[in-house]
């Protein structure tokens, strides 16, 4: 048998983790051992994992700090909801409709990504970060005023209010400004969420080792040297940015179609930051770290429920402490030696 390279093996371990995660939760829920609060968290966990993976593509592999990733999630969420609601009569099959909604979410988010990427990627460093933040806020603000309705003549859009949609009798409002989308049919399933994670993971892991992926990494490591080698910088940065937006869009659609109502305020600056925290705590550029951090940190506030009012405070302290400890050489070498000692002891006992 041909020996697998280290990278390929690491990739297969990642798929394995996701599949094992899926099987464990399937067994738990089949035997009724899964708490209802955790059960409700499963699909959000999936979409946050996809968000973290997609942001890792921008922050880790392309090396650009983006503070507006929730904006793409929002675009995907609402376009997915509109697609699902307007196809309700045409496509009766729920799974098929979900897949179409995910695709539409990804497609519209890609457009948004390209549109935003062209001006944004000319900037560098902190200026790029602030512009992505600004775009995230603009998207939230516009969606907060967006009204979409459907009747026999098709879709209607308005930025003012509901009556200005001029719906025919029998028409339905899908998005109503700050109220968001009401009465969404819940389509998302855990299975589709897992499949989507595997797809995204498959794409990113192969992208990293592809020609464009290596070009993106070269640009990150030294933009000027890459440019001198004839790599078109803007093109490859845009590819990474738009792909990441597409993934975030499908994550948003998956997220929104899990709830009966979704408001635009959900996808604000804090959500962007939350996803960035997953990426940084998981290790920048480390996909497995992103997956684990996203899953653990989504569940953590639920687990801290005993602390009740203190849980977000504890969360903040944990966040600060983790950053302080992981960036302190003395503390890290202490932890490493402790882990080594524990490992030796464990091995001795096993013998």
């Amino acid at each position: 048998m041909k020996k697998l390279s280290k990278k390929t093996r690491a990739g297969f371990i990642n798929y394995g983790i996701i599949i094992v995660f899926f099987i464990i939760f399937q067994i738990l829920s089949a035997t009724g051992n899964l708490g209802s609060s955790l059960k409700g968290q499963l699909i959000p966990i999936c979409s946050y994992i996809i968000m973290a993976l997609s942001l890792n593509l921008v922050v880790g592999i392309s090396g650009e700090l983006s503070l507006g990733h929730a904006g793409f999630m929002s675009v995907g969420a609402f376009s997915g909801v509109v697609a699902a609601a307007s196809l309700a009569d045409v496509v009766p099959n729920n799974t098929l409709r979900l897949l179409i909604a995910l695709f539409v979410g990804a497609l519209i988010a890609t457009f948004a990504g390209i549109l935003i990427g062209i001006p944004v990627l000319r900037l560098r460093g902190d200026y790029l970060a602030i512009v992505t933040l600004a775009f995230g806020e603009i998207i939230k603000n516009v969606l907060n005023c967006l009204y979409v309705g459907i009747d026999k003549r098709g879709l209607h859009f308005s930025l003012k209010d509901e009556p200005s949609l001029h719906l025919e009798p029998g028409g339905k409002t899908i998005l109503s400004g700050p109220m968001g989308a009401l009465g969404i049919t819940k389509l998302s399933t855990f299975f589709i969420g897992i499949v989507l994670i595997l797809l995204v993971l498959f794409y990113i892991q192969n992208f990293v080792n592809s020609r464009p992926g290596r070009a993106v990494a070269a640009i990150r490591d030294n933009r000027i040297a890459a440019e001198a080698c004839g790599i078109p910088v803007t093109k490859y940065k845009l590819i990474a940015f738009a792909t990441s937006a597409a993934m975030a869009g499908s994550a948003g659609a998956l997220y929104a179609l899990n709830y009966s109502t979704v408001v635009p305020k959900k996808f604000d600056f804090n959500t962007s930051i939350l996803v960035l925290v997953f990426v940084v705590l998981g290790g920048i550029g480390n996909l497995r770290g992103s997956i684990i951090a996203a899953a653990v940190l989504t569940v953590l506030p639920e687990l801290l429920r005993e602390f009740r009012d203190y849980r977000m405070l504890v969360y903040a302290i944990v966040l600060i402490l983790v950053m302080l400890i992981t960036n302190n050489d003395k503390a890290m070498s202490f932890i490493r030696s402790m882990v080594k000692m524990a490992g030796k002891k464990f091995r001795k006992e096993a013998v």
Partner: protein
Amino acid sequence: MVSYLINGISLGSVYAIIALGYTMVYGIAKMLNFAHGDVIMIGGYMAFCSTSYLGWPVIPSVLFSIFVCTILGMLIEKLAYKPLREASSLAVLITAIGVSYFLQNAALLIWSSNPKAFPNMVDLPNLVIGDVQISSVAIVTIIASIIIMIALTFFTSKTKLGKAMRAVSEDKGAAQLMGINVNATISMTFAIGSGLAAIAGVLLCSAYPTLMPTTGAMPGIKAFTAAVFGGIGSIPGAMLGGILLGIIEIFAKAYISTQLSDAIVFAVLIIVLIVKPTGLLGKKMAEKV
């Protein structure tokens, strides 16, 4: 029209004061201090507590609020940012976000999420010129910001400490070789920035008298935008950016759309950055090859 302009300048002055804090800290520590907005909120609560619960008069309670925020700023710098001075900028950013969460949630526990009605700090009659009425809060805000700007300009250009500050922001290593205590200077910058945040908090809450644990978040982001708008790291840039941002916001609210005003503000920022990638008064950086 004139009253819109005055309101815009007044709001812009508050943004400018907050933006000064951002820009000074960025200039010296090269970090985006996301917790700055929450220091504003703490400043507002301190002034609220000392006037409403302790019944202090206006001036001592403002001074008290400045004092608490100054200490808080130095404490945050000492505990959270100083150990990370050599770490990557992303790690510092996440820590700043952690501090911001911490302050917001601590405020939530202490004062609950119910909005508090901020007492009227400026008990003066409104100014009436012809048929234009200008609120006293707006006048006080503008005067306070002018005083702060003059004092800060004097401080950074004439005093020894101010010169040390500029030296550290330009080149840390060289400043240290010249005998400047870099750590003390950075700590002082945080103290000044946080003290300014307290003043901004009191002025902001006087103009918009509802106080919540999230009060500081949005003005924080906008002031940060203002700092970038004017060219981050530049003190006159922060003043100019803040005032322009305030005027744009008020005019967008008045003439275009109330709901879309934030989107318009951010859109203007993006256009400016595309035309002038380092902000209005930002320094052009030569690229090393």
